[in-house]
C-alpha cells in the first residue's frame, strides 16, 4: 500500500473507530464498576458513576453464597469432554467419508449435511424426552452425550482430509501401518488448522450454551456457568453488585482464553464461517 500522510479524513476515521470501540466497551465497564460498589452505595448514590469506597463484598457473596466454583468446574469439565469428543469423532468420520468407499456412504453424508439445516427448537423436545428416558435429567452427561458428534465437524474435516493426497496414505499402508495408526499419525497432523478452529468453536459454544442446560439441568449443584448468572439475577435481583460480580467472574476467563487464542480464532472464523 502507498504510504500516505495523516490527512483529515484519516484522523476522522481513527476518531470514529476509537469512539465506536469505546462504546462497545461500556457494558463491560459498567459491569466492573457496579461489581466494586457496595449495595448501599448503589441504592443511595445511584447517579454517581465511580465507586466511592471500592469493596469486594459482591465477589464475596458470589463465592460464599453459591457453589460457584462447582459451577465453574462443571462448565470446564463438560466443555472439555465435548470438545475432545467432537474433535475425535469429526476427524475420524471425516477421514472415513473422504478416503474410504462403502455402501450407503453418499446417502449417509447427505443426511448428515441435511441435519445442519434443522433448527435446535425442532430437536430439543424429542432430545429432552430421550434424555429423560435414559434417566440423565440433572446429570452432567445430559449436556455432553448429544454434543459428542457434530455434523458440521464431520463436514469440515472431510473437506480438509480430501486435500491430503491418496498416495501418502497408500505409502503408509505399504509400509505396513494399520488404519488407525494412519489416522493418528498422518491424517491428524495434516488437518491441524481445521482441528484447532473446530476445537475453539466447540469449546466456546459448549461453554456459552444456555438453552439446552436450562432444559435438562435444574439441580443447583449440577448447573453450569451461563445458568449461574441467571440464578444470581433472580436470587439477588436487588443486589446488583452480586450479579455484576458474578458476571465479571464468568466473562473474564472466556475473554482471556479468547485473547490468547485470538489468531487461531479469527483465522478459523474466516476459514470455516462457523457461527
Amino acid at each position: 500500500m502507498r504510504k500516505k500522510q495523516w490527512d483529515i479524513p484519516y484522523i476522522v476515521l481513527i476518531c470514529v473507530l476509537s469512539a465506536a470501540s469505546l462504546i462497545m466497551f461500556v457494558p463491560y465497564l459498567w459491569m466492573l464498576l457496579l461489581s466494586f460498589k457496595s449495595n448501599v452505595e448503589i441504592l443511595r448514590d445511584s447517579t454517581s458513576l465511580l465507586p466511592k469506597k471500592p469493596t469486594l463484598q459482591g465477589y464475596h457473596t458470589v463465592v460464599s453464597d453459591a457453589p460457584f466454583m462447582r459451577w465453574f468446574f462443571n462448565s470446564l469439565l463438560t466443555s472439555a469432554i465435548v470438545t475432545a469428543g467432537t474433535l475425535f469423532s469429526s476427524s475420524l468420520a471425516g477421514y472415513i467419508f473422504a478416503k474410504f468407499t462403502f455402501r450407503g456412504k453418499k446417502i449417509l453424508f447427505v443426511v448428515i449435511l441435511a441435519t445442519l439445516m434443522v433448527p435446535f427448537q425442532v430437536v430439543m423436545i424429542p432430545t429432552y424426552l430421550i434424555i429423560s428416558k435414559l434417566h440423565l435429567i440433572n446429570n452432567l452427561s445430559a449436556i455432553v452425550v448429544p454434543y459428542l458428534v457434530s455434523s458440521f465437524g464431520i463436514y469440515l474435516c472431510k473437506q480438509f482430509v480430501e486435500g491430503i493426497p491418496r498416495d501418502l496414505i497408500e505409502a503408509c499402508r505399504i509400509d505396513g501401518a494399520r488404519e488407525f495408526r494412519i489416522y493418528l499419525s498422518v491424517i491428524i497432523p495434516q488437518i491441524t488448522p481445521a482441528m484447532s478452529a473446530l476445537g475453539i468453536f466447540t469449546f466456546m459454544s459448549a461453554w456459552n450454551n444456555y438453552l439446552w442446560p436450562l432444559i435438562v439441568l435444574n439441580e443447583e449443584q449440577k448447573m453450569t456457568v451461563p445458568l449461574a448468572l441467571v440464578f444470581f439475577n433472580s436470587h439477588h435481583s436487588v443486589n446488583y453488585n452480586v450479579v455484576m460480580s458474578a458476571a465479571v467472574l464468568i466473562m473474564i476467563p472466556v475473554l482471556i482464553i479468547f485473547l490468547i487464542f485470538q489468531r487461531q480464532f479469527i483465522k478459523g472464523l474466516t476459514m470455516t464461517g462457523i457461527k
Partner: protein
Amino acid sequence: MKNERHFQQQVSEMRFVSVSLSPIIAIFLIFAIVPIVWGLVLMFYNYSPLDAHSPFIGFGNFKRMLHDDLFLKSFGNTFKFVLMAIPGNLVLTLALAIGINRVRSRFWRNTFRTLFFLPTIAPLSGSAVVWTVMLRQNDGLFNLILDRLGMPEVNWLSDPQMAMISIVMMTLWADIGYNIVIFMAGLDSIPQMFYEAAELDGAGRWQLFRHITMPLLSRTSVFVVIMTCISYFQMFPQFQIMTNGGPSNGTRVLALDIFDNAFSYMNMGYASSIAFVLLLIILAITLVQIRLGRSQWEY
C-alpha cells in the same frame, strides 16, 4: 500373492470403517435423526408428558395455531425483530469493516477488530443480564446518561414499543463482531489492482465503493445476511432473560413461545408444531441462499 494382499487390505479397511464409524453413527442417529423424526411425528399429537394419553389429532395443532393470539403475536414479533436487526447489523458491520480495513497500521487494525469482536465471545446469557442492569429504569446507565443530558428517561424494557428496540440494540452489540470479521476477510480478497486501475481512471471514493467494493462483496454479503437471518430467527437467551416475552407480549418470539409451550406448559405436541413453522422459515431462507449462491459471479 498380490490379489491376496489386496483382499487382506480390503478386509482391514472394512473392519476399520465399521468399527470406528458405528459408535459415531449410533450417537448421530440417537441424538440427531431420531429427534428430527420424532419431532415431526409429535406435531400431529396432543402430547404432554404429564398425561397418560396423547391422542392423535392430525393437523389439530396447526388449526389451533391459527387462533392462538400468542403464537400469532410471536410470529409477528420474530419477523419484526429480524427486519429491525438485520439491516442494522449489515450497515454497521459493513461500515466498520471498511473503516477498520482502511487503518494503515496492522497492529491497530487487529486491535480494533478484537475490540468489536470481544462481545461475541462472552456468554449471551451474561451479556443479557448486564444489559438488563444497564437498561433499568431508575438507576440504569442509559437513563443516568439521559438524565445528565437533561432528557426525559425512557422505559427501556417496560414500554412495549421500546423493549424490542432495546433487545435489538443488545443483539447488535453482542453480535456485530462476527460479521465484521467476515466482511474484513471479504474486503481483503478483493484484488488491490482493481482499485488502483479505477483510481487511475479518476474514480472517487463513492464510485470505488459503488462499482468495485459492492459488486465484488456481494457473495460475502449474501452469506452474511443468510447466516445472520438463520441465527436471528432462533434467538432465545436475550428474549428470555431481558423481558421474558413482555411487556404485554411485545417481545415474545417463536423460540420463546416454543420453549414456554414445551417446558412451562408441557404442551410438547403443540410446541413441536410451532417448531415446525420455524423449520419451514429456515428452509425457505436456505433455499434462497442456494438460488442466490448459484447466480453469483466469481472473480
